[in-house]
């Protein structure tokens, strides 16, 4: 006979569950509305989604957080980075979802399920970042990923199906790695909670054979997250998936899943680094350096802007991965600062692609956004060209645009940690990357437009909501110098309210 479990209601601390519940409840509301009345316009669902996300944001920022703030049978952990990353995820989602209000009709947005899935995905990410329990992290990760696969496939084209299936298979493989890694850690420590795993490992550190198990577990988990963060050599799926997904989703994928995966990586790998498992640190640095270099070189030869941006996001992820290896407070601050700023620039760049998206491939038999499409854009639509050039310069790390501040903060953290050579490698990689961003600028400003391209073709998909989002992205990208200090302040407070590696 099982013992009855006695837990007081207060100990459940149900308020920690509120943010996820709001997202899930919101998704259900959208499904209910569809049940009652059909053929409603997508604008209704978009606005509802935004409102639900705003409520969610309010609930998240209102949470009490702390390094040991636990809830719901102690599986949820509302520490600083949990709240911080949820805020970033929600803000990014609020900014990306209005991109579905295009002037042309796209298949996926006519289904309310799209928006419900979108909200479920966000709930998944929220679970993933606010737990130190490997099972819950896994559940969150899979909820989010499965929704994301479906969202990609909804973009009813052959290469979207291909992308979704590719992403799904690769994701399944990563899930396999993750479970095996967790199993190994469970075998060592008899627990799935990171804090207890850390204690157990540090106690058994000198037992014979334990080190091999630790390395096995860490290696398997590293492989799983290398898949999710698209690090070399597990990055090959990313460009195809970005190409197959619609531009807003591709932009979304380059930010939100990455933030979530970085938060979990911080929790897991900085624990190992704290435990003096140097192999993990070396391995991460090697992965980061190879990732940024190889993908930068690959990006140089792309003919399609979206594929180029895909490779560039991988390279940016490699750049940020360095911070995980450093495992200092400053580096962790850098990760969030980088993504908070990168988010707006990438939002803008992908919106520009979305604005110019056609239903049929009018410019190239294989690509939607070949460089030729943007040739001579300064003559056809000067504002568009200047805005796109701003985003490219920002991505290249030209000051004072947003990504530059993230870059120098991370490079500075690298210098502080004593890895001067690594900072130089990061700098040189930014210089290589400048070439492919410049290539687009050269096409837009210095080439003649091909005769059959006019404003109507490039501005095909434009609408007021898209322009609003674009304007927002421009303002943040240009004026970021004034936002860096409050951001660093906020992120720092959150990082201080977090225990790493315990």
């Amino acid at each position, binding site marked *: 006979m099982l013992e009855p479990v006695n837990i007081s209601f207060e100990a459940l601390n149900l308020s920690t569950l509120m943010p996820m519940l709001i997202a899930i409840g919101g998704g259900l509301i959208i499904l209910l509305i569809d049940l009652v009345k059909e053929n409603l316009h997508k604008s209704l669902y978009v606005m509802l989604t935004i409102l639900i996300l705003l409520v969610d944001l309010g609930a998240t920022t209102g949470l009490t957080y702390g390094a040991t703030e636990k809830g719901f049978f102690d599986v949820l952990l509302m520490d600083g980075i949990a709240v911080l990353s949820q805020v970033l995820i929600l803000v990014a989602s609020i900014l990306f979802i209005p991109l579905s209000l295009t002037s042309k009709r796209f298949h996926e947005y006519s289904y309310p399920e799209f928006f419900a899935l979108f909200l479920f995905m966000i709930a998944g990410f929220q679970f993933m970042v606010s737990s130190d329990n490997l099972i819950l992290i896994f559940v969150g990760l899979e909820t989010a990923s499965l929704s994301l696969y479906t969202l990609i496939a909804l973009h009813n084209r052959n290469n979207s199906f291909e992308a979704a299936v590719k992403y799904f298979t690769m994701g399944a493989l990563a899930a396999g790695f993750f479970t095996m890694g967790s199993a190994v850690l469970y075998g060592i420590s008899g627990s799935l909670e990171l804090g207890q795993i850390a204690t157990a490992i540090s106690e058994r550190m000198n037992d014979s054979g334990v080190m091999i198990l630790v390395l096995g577990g860490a290696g398997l988990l590293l492989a799983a997250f290398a898949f999710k963060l698209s690090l070399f050599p597990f990055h090959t799926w990313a460009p195809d998936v970005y190409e197959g997904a619609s531009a807003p989703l591709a932009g979304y994928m380059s930010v939100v899943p990455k933030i979530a995966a970085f938060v979990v990586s911080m929790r897991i790998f900085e624990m190992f680094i704290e435990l003096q498992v140097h192999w993990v640190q070396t391995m991460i640095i090697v992965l980061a350096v190879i990732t940024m270099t190889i993908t930068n070189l690959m990006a140089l030869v792309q003919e399609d802007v979206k594929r180029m941006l895909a490779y560039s996001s991988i390279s940016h992820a490699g750049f940020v991965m360095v911070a995980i290896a450093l495992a200092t407070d400053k580096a962790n601050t850098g990760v969030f600062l980088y993504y908070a700023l990168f988010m707006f620039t990438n939002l803008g760049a992908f919106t520009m692609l979305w604005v110019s998206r056609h239903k049929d491939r009018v410019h190239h038999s294989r690509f939607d956004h070949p460089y030729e499409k943007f040739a001579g854009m*300064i003559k056809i639509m000067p504002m568009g060209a200047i805005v796109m050039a701003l985003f490219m*310069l920002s991505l*290249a*790390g*030209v*000051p*004072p645009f947003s990504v530059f*501040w993230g870059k*120098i*903060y991370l*490079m*500075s953290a690298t*210098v*502080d940690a004593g890895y*001067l050579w690594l*900072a*130089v490698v990061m*700098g*040189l990689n*930014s*210089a290589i990357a*400048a*070439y492919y961003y*410049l290539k687009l*600028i*050269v096409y837009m*400003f*210095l*080439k003649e437009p091909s005769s059959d391209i006019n404003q109507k073709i490039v501005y095909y998909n434009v609408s007021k909501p898209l322009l609003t989002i674009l304007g927002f992205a421009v303002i943040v990208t240009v004026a970021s*110098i*004034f936002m*860096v*200090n409050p951001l*660093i*302040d906020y992120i*720092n407070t959150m990082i201080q309210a977090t225990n790493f590696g315990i």
Partner: protein
Amino acid sequence: MDSILSILIFFPALAGFLGFVVDKHSAKVYGVAVASIELILSLWLWAKFDLSNAGMQFSEKVDLIPQFGISYNVGVDGISLFIVIMAALITLLGIILLRDDTKKMKNMIVSLLFLEMTMVGVFLTLDAIIFYLFWELSLVPMLYIIGAWGGADRVYAAVKFFLYTFAGSLIMLVGLLSMAYLYHTATGNWSFSILDWYTLELTETQQFWIFLAFFSGFAIKVPMFPFHTWLPWAHGQAPTIGSVILAAVLLKMGTYGFVRFSLPILPDASVAFTPFIMTLSIIMIIYTAMVAFAQKDMKQVIAYSSVSHMGVIMLGVFAMNAEGLGGSIFLMLSHGIVSGALFMLVGVIYERTGTKVMSEFGGLASIMPVYATIFGVMLMASVGLPLTIGFVGEFLVLLGFYHVSTIGTILAGTTIIIGSVYMLVLFKRSFFGPVTNEKNRGLKDLDRRELTALIPLVMIVVWLGVYPKPVLGPIDNSVKLLLTQMEKKAISTETKEAIVISKKEAK
């Protein structure tokens, strides 16, 4: 008006934004008006400048990112004052010289105004990150100017220019970040203010590595041999206005960086690196002078001779005494005026004939006497004829460098003679003798627009050649202060001995 420096920096940028609205037929007049106001403001700064104060004046400081020690911090001293005035002057004259039928005139004016902001910003800012910000930002309008109005290979030249400089300065950025880190470990505060860095003591190993990082940024910009390969491309493809600004102002950012950053922050490393820099500079002077001699294209001759003279400036910077350093700063100004004027003159003849190849010309002096006279004056200034602006700087640099190395001085001095040979050959082939090309008979002499742009430069060449004191005085004050700081900061006795502040002390 205490915020005159901020006005100087941001006025052109604001005008650039508003310039988008101005009608394209009025754009040039708008540009001239804005650039004139900027020049008047900079002259006013000179008028208000306290000549006896060697330190930073008109300082402003606003914290931007206090968490990370970044603040908007500007100030002007004798070293930067005249470079700023020169930048404003060259921009104005360059805009005046633009032909009225330049295509996309509005884009050109807007780019030039943004470029002016970055140039003035680089020379006035005292915060390393803001310096870096303007430094990198200056690449963007220049990329567009070369790429949109340049010659046949303009895109290649523009991208090469951008990437070369960008790569070098990212390594420099690592150096800047390390400096901030070292400052943080020493004092517990984050600061990117170079005035704070001046007070920081560093070991010789630290100085060595940071010097190398700074060197990679500055040397590419100067451009030092062997990093000069981007420059002939850029000059060869750039439109006249691009070459003028590139040679007159943008290259000075590199030498200015050495003066403002490398010398006072890293005195020991600077002295230790002097033989290395000296060797590179002398190779640069001699090699590019010989290359210039072999060119057939008039613009390339001037481009290479401009690089050659940058070598003389580098020698002066690393002479570590008041004559050499002061002379090299004066030479930066005169190089800006003279090479700017020479590129303008080549542009003038290119607009008329569509060619820059010297063999196409001959006997131009009889067809275009005024043009030939102005060209002659600038040529003489370029080779350093006494009583022209070029002589003062070169003489002081060689005098200063004589204390460091006799052989180096002789080698560099000889090159000035080689320099005069190729310049005179250029002049002889193109301007004297019979008219070889019948097509050239109908060429018109300088018109009013071109004269407006060139006459002020001729006047400055003669004025400062005869009476350089108003400019040399403030420069000398600030240079002596800088050298005193260096000597105080230096840790090894050899460095202290190498730095000579005034002649009395040397004896």
